[in-house]
């Protein structure tokens, strides 16, 4: 403070400088006094910069004719050539369609299920029964995607229980895993089987905040359960539904590689080949680094655009509340 008083004598210009100076020196002093806080955040920051930001820089090889021997810096620039090449391949439209369809259908069918489950479980009054239902519903979340796909293969194999049942009813064997038209259905149903229960936790937790007084008042007014759900339960979980929807929609293009890749057979590729699996094959199996990075970048940019636009749309529909 004394410094400022001294500077006042030197005119208004100096005061401004002094204020900027004191803010800086105040911050520096804070950092010096609290250096331990900065030490704590340092490991995460270092790993973040190395493993997230360095690859972002590395993504410029999408615009280069990348040659590992010349490195990222040394490889020659080729502008948009990789992107143009990708967009003119006959696979382009199909890949884009497969990726968008798989996630859009996954969202449309997958999003409501946890909400419905939560509303249903919430109405179970006996605590012990409720706990047991939750225990079973959450369990598949802890099974690995490899095992879930393994179970899918077992169940849908030509001699598996599903086909056994179909032939028992007098139908013909269906070869689910090699028929492209079944891929999306298999992917989405097994996803719901595995994750819907787990995803209902967040809605259930929100529902547990509904006050009993409100429910009792509604009952006195003669509201039946469906009316209570419509006018009390749903409005309570609406903010969470909005957040979950935006997050899910924003991830529409960042589909899990892991499951799609496992569910692929050489026969169902017409529907099961999506952008992430294509990037993996072109990049790591065929070694075309620059080209596959361009495809990955294309995917990532669409993703960001989707996230921002969904957030804007929801904001408008939801009276200014997005994330």
């Amino acid at each position: 403070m004394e410094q400022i008083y001294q500077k006042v004598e030197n005119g208004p210009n100096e005061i401004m400088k002094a204020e900027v100076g004191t803010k800086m020196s105040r911050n520096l002093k804070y950092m010096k006094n609290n250096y331990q806080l900065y030490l704590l955040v340092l490991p995460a920051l270092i790993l973040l910069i190395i493993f997230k930001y360095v690859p972002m820089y590395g993504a410029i090889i999408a615009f280069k004719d990348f040659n590992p021997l010349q490195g990222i810096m040394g490889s020659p620039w080729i502008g948009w050539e990789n992107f143009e090449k990708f967009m003119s391949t006959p696979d382009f439209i199909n890949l884009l369609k497969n990726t968008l369809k798989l996630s859009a259908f996954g969202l449309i069918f997958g999003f409501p299920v946890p909400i419905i489950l939560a509303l249903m479980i919430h109405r179970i009054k006996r605590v012990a029964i409720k706990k047991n239902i939750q225990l079973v519903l959450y369990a598949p979340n802890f099974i690995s995607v490899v095992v879930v796909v393994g179970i899918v293969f077992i169940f849908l194999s030509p001699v598996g229980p599903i086909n056994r049942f179909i032939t028992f009813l007098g139908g013909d064997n269906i070869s689910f895993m090699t028929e492209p038209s079944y891929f999306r259905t298999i992917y989405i149903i097994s996803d719901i089987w595995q994750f819907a229960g787990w995803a209902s936790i967040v809605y259930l937790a929100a529902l547990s905040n509904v006050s009993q007084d409100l429910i009792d008042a509604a009952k006195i007014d003669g509201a039946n359960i469906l009316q209570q759900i419509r006018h009390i339960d749903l409005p309570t979980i609406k903010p969470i539904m909005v957040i979950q929807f935006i997050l899910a929609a924003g991830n529409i293009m960042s589909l899990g590689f892991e499951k799609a890749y496992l569910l692929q057979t050489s026969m169902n590729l017409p529907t099961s080949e999506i952008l992430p699996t294509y990037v993996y094959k072109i990049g790591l199996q065929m070694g075309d680094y620059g080209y596959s990075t361009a495809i990955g970048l294309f995917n990532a940019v669409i993703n960001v655009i989707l996230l921002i636009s969904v957030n804007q749309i929801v904001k408008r529909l939801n009276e200014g509340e997005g994330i």
Partner: protein
Amino acid sequence: MFKHQTRADKVILTTNGIILALIVFAILIPLIYVIMASFTNPATLLNSGITLNPSKWTLQGYSRVFKDGSLLIGFRNSLFYSTAFSLISVTITLFAAYPLSRKDFVGRKLMMALFIITMFFGGGLIPTYLLVKNLNMLDTIWAILLPGAVNVWNIILARAYFQGIPDELREAAIVDGTSEIQFFFKILLPLSKPIIAVLVLYQFVAQWNSYFDAMIYLKSENLQPLQIVLRSILVQMQPRPGMIQDAQNTAQLQQIAEMVKYSSIVISSLPLIIIYPFFQKYFEKGVMVGSIKG
């Protein structure tokens, strides 16, 4: 509570119970089927499916899996990766979350922005792979342990939890001459057991169940985690050599390949399914913290 239910409500509640029972059943059927099939004689399984007749039961699938040993090596490796990964990741997460939870922390906004950007945008598969390669981490345990160790979502969860702990606690401790580090370790962490439990469980499970990083970064047979071994047995339909060495003909080979699938699933999935109920009470807390602040 009002005891009187209208007739309509009774119908709705009963229907609700029945549908939920069916859903529980639908989730359990595949699991029960796999467990029963793992004990069923492969010839019977192939001809008529699972059976309740004990004379058709066998432990052969399990003995073959144990005799081969590669699943057990995978099990051991996964136990190591998951433990080390969750330890590293959760430590880093808690360290970073504390300063970021402090309103007075200079640089907080900038750092949060740096962290959050990476949730929505990244360099992608190939640049990350090239980085790991250039760091000479290919085919080492570090390729599994380090690239994914910073989980921004978990930092947000832990940060939200720390923000819920009253400021007065820290102020009182600082007045008593406690340093920030001492406060963090001696006062804050002991109060944060629920969130630590949730984060450790999340990271452990995530690592235990993932195969992708191992598939692209690891070549050596003795480094492979459980999921890679499982993938070859379950998805690529290639049982390990030690499981099938005594097979007489292709028909028998096929039966054995089928049988070891079931026992491998049971052996690899049972530990988590048994452990997770003990953590269940923490789930709602963990998820809730995130959904409010997220």
